[in-house]
Each structure stands twice: as structure tokens, then as C-alpha cells.
């Protein structure tokens, strides 16, 4: 039978290609890219930091290793931070220099290969929750400076927690296939014709700071969509907003000062306050960047091609006018003046701290109120430049209907948005907490 034969042949062909590809993938998985190739011309740490340990510390912060490897309040870099993914939970590893449970036995090459190729000392692929797709662009020097810093810290004996993943996601070897397709093992290359600051910002944003890991939308295979860099994405129940140069959807309308303030202090007047995962980034990483690096980052972000995704930002002037018109009275307002106005003030200006100002924030203009409900349910805290800013959580004592009403009221009153959150939406979001 002709048709039958064709089908068999086709299947055979697919299987063959599959096998060849798998062999290729498994073969190349431990390959970190051309290590001898030209290293990035930019260095991740300011030139005036010469002490190797200080340099390593600066880079470790810029790469925000602590975000994933330090449990809040726990020993630094001892791992164990859980990441809830749609298909299970994985835990970060101990990256202190402990010989049994950490990376004490890793050679320089092992460590560099881990960041460039996403494999562990034994060559087993790591899950791409570890942002090696970004770190692969780092220079060897910078990576080794980080390693030296980590090795200078007290060790922690903290055995890895077993991941809790369902089949097929618990098949690590499969990551090799993913890498073969999606991991471009290339070092950062400066763009000729762009100012030095721009290039430095690009290196900070794409390689060290790995902004895209959260802010760039992902495709069906969970790889970053490269055509849409920094156009905004949803993860872990939060929205990482569009931070392209689009005026309505991104940060195009922000002034340089506002951007720098936000990055350095977690708050830009009339623009927003960092909370949730972004709050952690400011707390652990961005607040420690030098002023020059911050302006470099700003210079780069300014220039990111505009994208239309995500929450749009009505012109600031319209916000106030729209406020009263759409504000829903009743339950939401009642709750707001009781539990919220103490800090935010009933006009949302923020009472004792700029951080409490709601004006202009994207979280109050997002009709889905994603980050807003997150903050209301779970609270928020930010330790920045000696300031301790916090908001208590209200999830425990307030009902779904109350939180929905409150969120809708805030959207209407301060964001000029018709909030349509229902109690069951809130119930759904609670599950993700």
C-alpha cells in the first residue's frame, strides 16, 4: 500500500530526525559556546571598584543571585527558595562554597559553564528558571568575580530540596532539547555606534540584570519571544509591566529622573512603587547600582523599541478627572476609608510616605487589578536605603467580595478604570498565593 508506506517512511523520518536532534542536543548541552571568542567589551562592575571581593559583590547584586538563592531571613545563598510553576514546584540550590551541599567543589570552568550553558558540575541540565539564557552573555571575568565573592562568604550546609514536578517536566534531560532550540550561547556584543553608556546599560539589563526573564513575554515553549523584548508578561500571579519606550504602554512617558528614582528607590512620584517580585529586585539588586550604572540602564531602557502590550497608561492629567466619575461608592469605599486611608489618604495622595501614593500607578490602572489584588491580599514590604516601607496583608480577614469591591473602587477612583473584578476572581487569585 502506497499510502501506508509513505506514512511509515514519514514516521521513520521524524523519528530519525528526532534521534539525530536529541543526540545533537545531548552532545552540545554541556558546551558553553565559544569560550575563546571575544569577551564582552563592557565589564559589569564600575571600573573604580577594584577590590576583587567588592567587585564580586557588586556583580552578585547586579545579577540578583540572592532573589532566588536566599530564603527571606535565611542564610544568604543557601538556596531552598520555592518556585511555583504551573507544573510543580522547584527549589533553588545552595550556592555557598559548602563542599557537600553547595558548590565548594566546583572549578572555575564548572561555574562558568553553568552560567553559559545551564548545566551543573556533572553536566546535567539545570531548569531554565535559572536565567542562564541571559547569563550566557556574561563575560568570564564577571562570572569568576561572582564566584570568588560567593566563595568568600560563610558556607551553609543546606542539602537541596527535592523538586516536586510532574511527568514529563521531571525529565531533566528534556531540557537539553529545549536548550538546543532556544539557548543562544553567545557573549554580549556591544553595538557599534551606540554610546558607551547605552552599551553598558544593555549589558546590565540583558545579561546581568536579566530584565527580560520577567518582562519579556514567552512563547508556548516558555522561551522569551525575542521580537517582543520587555513588552510585559505575567508570572507567579504578578504582572511584570511593559517597560519598552512606548509612551502609553511602557515607560516612554517617564522622565529620566523618574526612571532612575524607581530603579534606585523602588518609587517614582506619580508613576509607581515597586512591590512583589519587582520590590525584591529593587531591594536586593537595583538599589546598590552606582548612579552611573543607573543612568546607563535608563539610557538603554529609553531606547528599547516600543511595544503595545500590557496595561496602557492614560495621560496623567486625565486620571484625576476620571476619578470621581467612575468611582464606585459603597462597600469598596467603605473599606478603603477604614483600612487603607490611614496610609494612602482618602484622596490617594499618600499620607506619611510617598511610597503610599496611588497617583499614576500602573497597578491601579490595570483593569485586571493583578498586582493590586496581590498587594492587598499578601501585603508588601520594601527595604530600601535604610527605609523600611511596608503594607500589611488583608487577605486573611477580608472576604473575596470585599477585596473585589475594594480593588474595583481603587481602580475607579485612582486609575479611572471601570473595575470588574468579581469575588470568584479574587478566590482564584488567592489560590496562587
Amino acid at each position, binding site marked *: 500500500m502506497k499510502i501506508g508506506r509513505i506514512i511509515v517512511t514519514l514516521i521513520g523520518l521524524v523519528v530519525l530526525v528526532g534521534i539525530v536532534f536529541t543526540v545533537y542536543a545531548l552532545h552540545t548541552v554541556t558546551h558553553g559556546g565559544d569560550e575563546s571568542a571575544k569577551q564582552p567589551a563592557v565589564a559589569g562592575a564600575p571600573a573604580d571598584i577594584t577590590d576583587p571581593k567588592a567587585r564580586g559583590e557588586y556583580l552578585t547584586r547586579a545579577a540578583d543571585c540572592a532573589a532566588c538563592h536566599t530564603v527571606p531571613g535565611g542564610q544568604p545563598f543557601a538556596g531552598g527558595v520555592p518556585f511555583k510553576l504551573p507544573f510543580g514546584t522547584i527549589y533553588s540550590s545552595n550556592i555557598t562554597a559548602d563542599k557537600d551541599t553547595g558548590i565548594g567543589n566546583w572549578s572555575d570552568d564548572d561555574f562558568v559553564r553553568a552560567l553559559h550553558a545551564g548545566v551543573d558540575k556533572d553536566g546535567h541540565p539545570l531548569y531554565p528558571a535559572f536565567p542562564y539564557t541571559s547569563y550566557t552573555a556574561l563575560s568570564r571575568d564577571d562570572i569568576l568575580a561572582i564566584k570568588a565573592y560567593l566563595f568568600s562568604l560563610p558556607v551553609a550546609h543546606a542539602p537541596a530540596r527535592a523538586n516536586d514536578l510532574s511527568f514529563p517536566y521531571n525529565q531533566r534531560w528534556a531540557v537539553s532539547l529545549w536548550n538546543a532550540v532556544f539557548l543562544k550561547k553567545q557573549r554580549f556584543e556591544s553595538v557599534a555606534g551606540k554610546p558607551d553608556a547605552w552599551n553598558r546599560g544593555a549589558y546590565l539589563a540583558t545579561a546581568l540584570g536579566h530584565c527580560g526573564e520577567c518582562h519579556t513575554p514567552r512563547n508556548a515553549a516558555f522561551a522569551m519571544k525575542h521580537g517582543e523584548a520587555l513588552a510585559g508578561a505575567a508570572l507567579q500571579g504578578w504582572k511584570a509591566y511593559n517597560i519598552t519606550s512606548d509612551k502609553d504602554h511602557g515607560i516612554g512617558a517617564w522622565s529620566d529622573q523618574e526612571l532612575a528614582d524607581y530603579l534606585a528607590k523602588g518609587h517614582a512620584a506619580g508613576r509607581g512603587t515597586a512591590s512583589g517580585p519587582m520590590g525584591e529586585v529593587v531591594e536586593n539588586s537595583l538599589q546598590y547600582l552606582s548612579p552611573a550604572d543607573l543612568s546607563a540602564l535608563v539610557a538603554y531602557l529609553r531606547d528599547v523599541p516600543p511595544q503595545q502590550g500590557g496595561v496602557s497608561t492614560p495621560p496623567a492629567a486625565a486620571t484625576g478627572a476620571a476619578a470621581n466619575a467612575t468611582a464606585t461608592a459603597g*462597600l469598596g469605599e*467603605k473599606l478603603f*476609608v*477604614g*483600612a487603607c486611608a490611614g496610609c494612602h489618604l482618602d484622596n490617594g495622595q499618600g499620607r506619611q510616605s510617598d511610597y503610599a501614593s496611588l497617583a499614576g500607578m500602573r497597578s491601579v490602572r490595570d483593569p485586571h487589578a493583578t498586582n493590586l489584588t496581590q498587594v492587598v491580599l499578601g*501585603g508588601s514590604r520594601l527595604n530600601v536605603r535604610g527605609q523600611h516601607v511596608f503594607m*500589611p*496583608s*488583608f487577605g*486573611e*480577614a*477580608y*472576604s*473575596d*467580595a*470585599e477585596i*473585589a*469591591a475594594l480593588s474595583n473602587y481603587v481602580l475607579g477612583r485612582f486609575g479611572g478604570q471601570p473595575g470588574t473584578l468579581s*469575588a470568584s476572581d479574587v478566590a482564584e487569585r488567592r489560590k496562587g498565593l
Partner: protein
Amino acid sequence: MNLRVPPSPHDVDLQSPSRRELIKRGGLVVAFMWLGGAGRVWGLPDNARLDPSHPAFAPNAFVRIGNDGSIQLVMPTVEMGQGSYTGQATLLAEELDVGLDQITVEHAPPNRKLYANPLLGDQATGGSTTIRFCWTSLRNAGAAARYMLVAAAAQRWKVDAAQCTVARGVVTHAPTNRTLRYAELADAASKVTMPDKVSPKDPKDFQLIGKPLRRVDTPAKVDGTLPFGIDIRVPGMKVATVRACPTFGGKLASVDDTRARAIPGVLKVVKTDNAVAVIGEHFWAAKQGLEALDITWERGPNASFSTGQLFKDLAEASEHGKPILGREVGHVDNVKGKVVSATYQLPLLAHATMEPINTTVHVRPDSCEIWVGTQVPARCVDVAAKVTGLPPESITVHNQYLGGGFGRRLFEDSVEQAVAIAKQVDFPVKIVWTREEDIAQDRYRPAYYDRISATLDDNGKPIAWTDRTTGASVLATFAPGAMGKNGLDGDLVECSAELPYAIPNMRVDWVRHDMPAGLAVGWWRGVGPTHNVYVVESFVDELAHAAGKDPLAYRRDLLGDNPRARAVLELAAQKAGWGQGQLPPRHGRGVALAAPFGSYLCVVMDVEVTPQGEVIMKRAVAVVDCGWVVNPNTVEAQIQGGMVFGWSAALYSGITLKNGAVEQRNFNDYRVLRLNETPEIEVHIVPSTESPGGIGETGTVMAMPALTNAIFAATGVRIRTLPIDRHALVQDQNALKAVLSDATPADAASGDAAATARRLA
């Protein structure tokens, strides 16, 4: 009238306010005892047994009239908002014929012999007893003092004392137009023989009692000058804050204070058995320091205990435990009729007094001084003696105004901890708990699991009634000696053993199921009645519903010969407009009737329940007969405030445990009612000449069933578990069905319960 803060310790010997000392300073000292019949204890109040004719003089506690014109009263009970100072001063002023503004009051020092509250068996303020136990003794004391002063005047003028009158502390002999002030008479009066017996005034002559007088303690409360315990500042004092093992019964294993010590202003880190405190120049330093400690706890036997487990255990005990009989009337067995039964569940509750727990202590080698707002000063001396090893005479307690008590300050645990901390340093230290600590280390109102059932005759009247409560005994830890003969803690059956209703056959019992060791329980505003009245009055509502009767009419029919209860019920019905007009959909009107603390109350409430399940309280009408009213202003305020306290608990508050530790932390998750959730509250007082009943806790008791009965009327959902699960009130047929299917057969059979309930209301 001005209130004095307690004198400094070296000024007067506070341990024994010696008569001699006072007499030396001149003037008349009338001493008396708060005598009111021996052996009455907490949990079994019965004001009727206070014998008004009992002579009430005994040496020591005092009313002092100085030859400088001062009139001083040492207050046996403390002021924590309930107006006790004003009430006590009023009783005395009435009999002395002076103005309230002429009296100075002082907190009593710790001294059980002199100041023990006969209703509580200890020097304690609680159980809505102040006016009940002072009603006789203070009036007698005032009357005796007046007799002696008038006698002194009569002697000087050589006239008949009966011809003398007194107004504002001035004795007048009208026929000769002569006057003398108390100040001028005080010394002479002290030589007059104290009468064996005096009669207090005939109530028709009352000038002050029953008038809506102003409180004596408020001026300093509106300008910020009145110091609470937390405001104490003594020379050289430092400030500390503390964290005890979050798991009850756990211990402190170790603490690394390296980071804490680096914080500017942190002075010292002090450990106790189960807690660690950071002492700083100010609270902020101490708090920062506390947060920077790396503490390891030894979590102990309760490390996996949870409230889920607690309720499982309670249910199990209710079924299989050994009941202790509270009251039996007739025979409940073999009564034929329609049986209705239900199970109720009440949570652990924290007090969350507005003023967080605090104590200031200075331990010296030979003495210990304590500044604290406490409901139990004598017990504070006991624990300080225990911790320091000093004799009780060397311990001074300066009692302070309480920023709310509600039962929390009937426990001296925090004082014990504070002394243990202060004894490790040689300067005075003020220990202030954070709100988080205050919630996490309270003495919680116990959780209860109650099974109640009734057999109805053909008219729907209960002819048999059984009520079994299961829960912990507070009394067993607070005053074990006061437990009943058969092991009964009267608190557990207060207001469930005695009902305002005539029911021929009753059996009320209690299965004792204490909390695991280390998890302390305590008195909470409304004590036993808060728990029992909620259950009984909800269930009576269920019965009315099962009988197809109007809940108010049903109660009226059950009352039997109970005129005081009947009067409050009728007035409440009239004032609230019961049965008049049609309520809109999802609006409901509920009623509750009870006789807690020797008073009679009926509360009617209107609520609206939104389709999303949110409860909006519209209006509350409270009618009270609390016997002789000393101050209607206070009665009204206490009912209003008490109801707000009860609604907070019914709607929002509940303490849950996970891993043996409390999950709630602060007002964001231990929620209490706010101003914009509070309805208008009308209070109507039924005039009465009976002895005064308690008032401070009655509103709290009534608030919960009145609210849940109104919610039933609005939605058809019977709330049998507190706090109210508002998700169960969502207007959604499935949700409604789920709730109803848990309910009694009587409920389930009644079809559209909400509509029925609305029609009935």
C-alpha cells in the same frame, strides 16, 4: 473632681494604708469592708443575695474627710473604661451629701483583705460586678461618715442632729441659721462613736444616683494628660519589647543577638525561659533589635497543634466525655414530640485591648516597684514575690488607668514576665508588647462546641431541653478553689442553666475539655453568657422557626411569670417597630432576649445582607432593665460599646492556631469593627427599683445572637459557627442549599427559608 495619680512609694506606705497615718494628717477616716455575703465567686453572680441591711463597717479600707476640705475615696475596683470610678464616687457622694466634684479618688493598693471583691473572691475587677458589690457597702460607708459629721455638728451646736441638713458638704441648722463645713467637723467627727447601723438614704431622696452625671475621669482623657500604664516614665527608665515562643508551651533554645546589638540604641538582650527581650533607649530601638534577633525555639509538645485538631477533639469529647451536670429540671428522657437539634461552635478570641500589654518594673536588691494597669493588683504582688524572692511587703504596685481590660488584665502573666526581665538589669525598664505579641500571647477566650436539642409539643413549645457545652474551664486555672462540688465551673453554664423561659424539663451539662498544656485561656468580656446566650438565643430562634412562629411572639409565649423579661421584650418590640412594615428582600430583623449579670435585656436588630454576602448593620435597639441605675449615661455607653465589641467578634474575630502558634498578627487580620460599619444604637432603660445588675458586659452578650438571628431573617442561613462565614451568605442557591443541608431536619423541611423568615419578621 480631680483624680490623683498614685502617690510615689515613699510618700505613703501603699502596702497598708494605715489609719494612724491618715488620722495623723487629721480628719475623719471611715473604714469599711466591701462586705456582701461571703463565698460568692466569679461565674455565679447573684446580686439578690447581697444583703443591703448588713452592717458594713470594718477597719481599714477608707473614706477620708480631711480637715483641709478634702474628701477622698480609695477605689476598690479599677477604671478601664466602664465608668466604675464615676459610679463608685457617685454612691459615696450621694450618702455624704457632697457633689461629685468634691471627691478625689485613688486606686486601691494591692490588699486582698481590704479590697477583695466578694463576688469574685479576689481583689479583682470583672464580671460586671463593681456596682453590684459596692451598691451596699459604699452607701453604708457614706451614710456612716455623714452620721458622724452631722453628730459632730449637732454636738457643737448642742442641737438635735435630726434638725440638721447637709448640702455639698455643708451642715446647716436651719432654726438657728448656723452652718459648718465638713472640713471644720472632720477632727471632731473622728471622735464620734461609729454607729452600729445606719440606714442609707431612701431612694426617693437620691440627688445623684440615677442622674446622668458626667464621668469624673474624662477631662484628662481628651487632652492627653491622663497617663495609662504605657505612658509611665520614671527616671533612668529604658524601654524593652519582647517575643515569647510563638508555639505555646515552647521554650527559648538559643538566640544570636549579633545583628541586634549593632543597632544604635539597643542596650541589652535579656532572656527568660521562653522569651527574649531587647532593651533599648526607646521602643523603636528595642523593636528594631528584636526583629534583628536570630532566635531558635524549642517548640515543645504543641508544635503540631491546630484549631482544626482542637475542634475535632472538642467534638469527640462532647460525644464521649464525662458530662458534669449544670442543672436538671424534671426529666428530659422519654418526652414525645418533634425533636430539633443543632450544633454550635465558637472560636478562640483575643482581647486586643487598645492599649497593648505593658509593665514598668524596677527591681532593686531589696524591693520591687511595678507600674501597671491591672484588674488584679494583689496577684501582681504574688508573681513579683515569686520571681524576685522578695517578701510581698517589699513589692509595690502602682495601679494605672487601663486602656481597655475586657478580661485580659485579669491575668498577671505579662507582669511575671516583666519582673523576670527587669530583675536582670539594675535600672527601671518598661516592657511594651508589640500588637503582634499582644495578639500572639493573649489569654484567649476558650473555644466551645455545643450540642443543643429540644422536643416540641404540638404547639411548637419546647417541653424538653438539653444543652451540652464542651470546652475549657478558665476558673480551674484562675481560682481552682472556686470550682463547684461536682467539678462544675459555673461559668460554663451561666445563662444556659437559668433561662428566662419556662421549660418544664431541662438538662444542662458540661464536658470539660481543657486546652493542651501551655495554651492559656482567659476571661473575655461577657464571659460565660457571651458564649451561652449566643447558643441559647440562636436556638430559640431555630425553634420558633421550626414551630412556624414569629420569633418575638414565640419568646413572649415562653416567658411564663417573668415580668422583668417581659417588660424589656415588649418595649423593644415597640421601639423597634417589630412586625410593622415589610422589609425589602435580603433585609432582616432579629431579636435576642436574656438576663445576664443580674440585668434583663432585649435587643432587636435590622440588617441587610448583600448578594455578595456582606452584612450591613442598619439599626439596633437595646432595652435594658438593670435594676437601680446609678448613672444612665454610663449604662447607655456600656451597652453601645459592649455591642460593638460583640459584633466585632461575631463578624470578624477569631483566633486560629497552626503549629501550636496563633496565625493572626495585628488589626489587619484580627479585624474589629470600624465606625463606618457601626449602626445607630438606641438604648432604652426600663426604670426599676431592684438592686443594680451588671452592665459592662451585657451588650456584648446580646449583640451576637441579635445579629445572627437578623441575618437568618434576611437570608435563611442559620449561623451556627462564629465568626460568621460571609461566604455562606452569598446569594447563590447552591451555597444556600449547602448550608441548609447541614442544618436540622426542621430547617430543611421548610422550603424557602429566607422567604419564610422574612414573612415572619
